[in-house]
């Protein structure tokens, strides 16, 4: 196996106040120094509330399609990933709903690539549910494209085990007049590094991306979400709600609007809730706007505990302190989801699991 990735740095520019990455590269380095392809993969059946149409690699191991990747591969982790691919699959969803299960390695590394093409009213749910005792690293790349006029939806549910790790790279492109709504429900293992880059370079495309993230004790997540707008009448909105209970959570979000994007709208919001003194939450929202074409470009970030006035109100309505906390946290998570996702029972179920993973059992 080629190991040229070891010559590349983990990030373009060394850590400095301006370019701090917050990702826990050292955890990935443990796997990259002694790379071994995972022999056994599995899934946590208890968390599977959706019947998958396709299991990767079980159903596709024999096929190898080309990994389409629109971005430069010049940093270590993506380079490792693409040099280590076990499977590369293409999935086309036309006007229907499909659930895909991506199995997770019990130990060592498993790397998979998916090209996903969405047409019409297509909906894809990706499930990564690690078995409780797994300690492997999964790296996953998703090349997502919505076809013209599509009204597509993607849900990504990642529930890692305490000792596993995941790196997820997404490159998304929207064709003219298409809409893509994304819902992410993420519980990292030791660490999760997610890089999502979305390109709206065709007219009239709309992108709404929601993230609900929890980082319990000893777990961390660095979530990088970027939307690049290069065409008129496009809109991008990225919303993240993250809760840290003794873990670390960093959200770096970028909205970039190029010249020529008349009537474009870009919005980024980050709501991070630290629940204990040991919790760490970092927000770095970025706006890069070129010219006065955009109609709206804004971002907001807030890091603060749950509002005591709201907690008291709920307690005065017979809820115990713990119940009030949970209800309020659920409300914060639901705030970032698009309307239709809120109503889906599976989404709500996974949110309950997310909340439970924080193990907020003890009233302080």
């Amino acid at each position, binding site marked *: 196996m080629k190991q040229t990735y070891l010559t590349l740095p983990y990030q*373009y*520019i060394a850590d*400095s*106040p*301006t*370019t*701090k990455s917050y990702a826990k590269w050292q955890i990935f380095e443990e796997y990259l120094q002694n790379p071994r392809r995972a022999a056994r993969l599995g899934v946590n059946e208890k968390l599977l509330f959706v019947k998958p149409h396709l299991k990767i690699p079980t159903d596709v191991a024999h096929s190898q399609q080309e990994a389409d990747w629109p971005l430069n591969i010049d940093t270590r982790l993506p380079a490792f990933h693409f040099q280590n691919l076990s499977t590369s699959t293409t999935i086309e969803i036309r006007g229907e709903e499909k659930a895909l299960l991506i199995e997770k390695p019990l130990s060592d590394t498993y790397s998979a690539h998916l090209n996903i093409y969405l047409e019409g009213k297509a909906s894809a749910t990706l499930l990564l549910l690690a078995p409780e005792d797994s300690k492997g690293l999964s790296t996953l790349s998703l090349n997502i494209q919505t076809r013209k006029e599509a009204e597509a939806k993607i849900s990504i549910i990642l529930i890692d085990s305490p000792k596993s790790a995941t790196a997820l790279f997404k490159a998304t492109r929207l064709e003219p007049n298409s809409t893509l709504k994304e819902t992410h429900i993420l519980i990292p293992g030791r660490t999760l590094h997610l890089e999502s880059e979305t390109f709206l370079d065709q007219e009239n495309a709309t992108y709404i991306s929601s993230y609900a993230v929890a980082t319990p004790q000893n777990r961390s997540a660095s979530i990088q979400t970027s939307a690049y707008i290069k065409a008129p009448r496009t809109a991008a909105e990225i919303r993240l709600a993250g809760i840290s209970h003794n873990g670390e959570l960093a959200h770096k979000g970028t909205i*970039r609007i*190029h*010249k020529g994007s008349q009537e474009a709208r870009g919005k980024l919001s980050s709501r*991070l809730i*630290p*629940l*204990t*003194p*040991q*919790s*760490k*939450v*970092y*927000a*770095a*929202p*970025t*706006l*890069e*706007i*070129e*010219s*006065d*074409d*955009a109609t*709206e*470009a*804004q*971002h*907001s*970030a*807030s*890091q*603060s*505990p749950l509002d005591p006035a709201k907690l008291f109100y709920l307690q005065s309505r017979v809820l115990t302190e713990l119940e009030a906390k949970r209800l309020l946290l659920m409300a914060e998570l639901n705030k970032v989801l698009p309307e239709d996702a809120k109503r889906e029972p599976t989404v709500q179920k996974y949110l309950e699991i997310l909340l439970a993973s924080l193990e907020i059992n003890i009233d302080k």
Partner: protein
Amino acid sequence: MSKTELLESLTLTDISLDSLKVRPKLLLRGRISRSLVEELSRAKKEPPWMLKLRLRSLELFEKLPTPNWLVGVEELDLEELTHYIQLGYERASSWDELPEDIRKVYERLGLPEIEKRALAGLSAQLESENIYLAFKKFLEEQGVILMDMSEAVAKYPDLVQKYFMRVFPPSDHKFAALHGALWSGGVFLYVPPNVRVEAPIEAFFFIASELESQMEHTIIVADEGSFVHFIEGCSAPLFKRYSFHNGMVEIYAHRNSHVKFTTVQNWSKNLVNFNNKRALVEEGAVVEWAEGSIGSKISYVYPSAILKGRNARVSIANITVAKGPVWKDGGAKVYHLAPNTQSEVISKSISSNGGVSVYRGLIKVARGAKNSTASVKCDSLIMDKESKAFTYPKNEVEEEEAYVVHEATTGRISEDILYYLETRGFKEQEARRLIVLGYVGDILGKLPFEYKMVFRKVLELEFEEIGGYA
């Protein structure tokens, strides 16, 4: 000045979003010799500790990594830089030497003759004007020390040594080290305990020449319970011969003191401006930074505060104008290190005619800084297709009982408001001007009265020729 001409012709409009990711490292030409630094110190008759500091800074300068985040400055000629430090004159020596556009602005601003001459650096007479003398005497009677930095180093060496480059050590970054080695000029201001100096100290008219140098070092020490308002700079455009400015301001606000520091900067467009500004805020003390930046070609200024004691507060207000092919990089950094600390940052920028305004901020709340609140509002107004605004804040919170909020909006002149004003009889040009003034309104309010008036006028003049806007 070939370097100056080069700077003036730099088209920052070449900077596109795609090219932002990686920038080449700054190239340093020439060297700064140890003997130059020793000579400098000797000429100023400095005590041994100061020479030591300079030499240590020089060593650090040579060791520290060269920044790769600078834009528009590909190389720095160290020998040309030290040229001015040795010569010791930085202003125009005759009215005719002033660039045409600056002379015109002075006319339009309608300043009194004597101020015009002071601004042009032609008159040393100002320092002997009665009104200023009377104020100086009043300050002396209160025990306030206000003098140029070199004089303070000679007269009060122990006091100055207590503070010189303590909150901003030369090891911080390469330009801080450069500053430590070559600094010259600047002001030392010490306010004794419980003394309140109600009238603002307008440094420009007191110690004009001292604030003119390339690497001036200003220290403000407010002892317990004192109050002082220091104003540096002026709104009218200033011409400087040198093309690279690397100043430093350190503020030490002791327990329960209150320091207001206002900077208004409108330097000619041949300048690259670095300004290292930091305040150390002790228990119960308040520091207010207000910055109005109109001129210079490329500037990097990030007023910062370390909230060291409980209940310490800081407020940072910036107005930045990036008109024409300029790169204005600014922001604010606040470190909450104690409980009940508060910070408020408001930054408003205006980019037009291809200007780029950049906001970089950091709010760091350390564990244990319980009940701290930080709020940041940074807005950018982009006036036309050619201009840009980039916002890069970072909020790092390691304390659960802290409240940090950040909001940023980048927008353009609202068409609805334009239309409304036009229906009230304002021509488009006038309407735009009104909107721009309204946009910076609340920050303008933080500037002292006369500065507010001149700043407004300058803004109006700047935006008079918006023209050509379709």
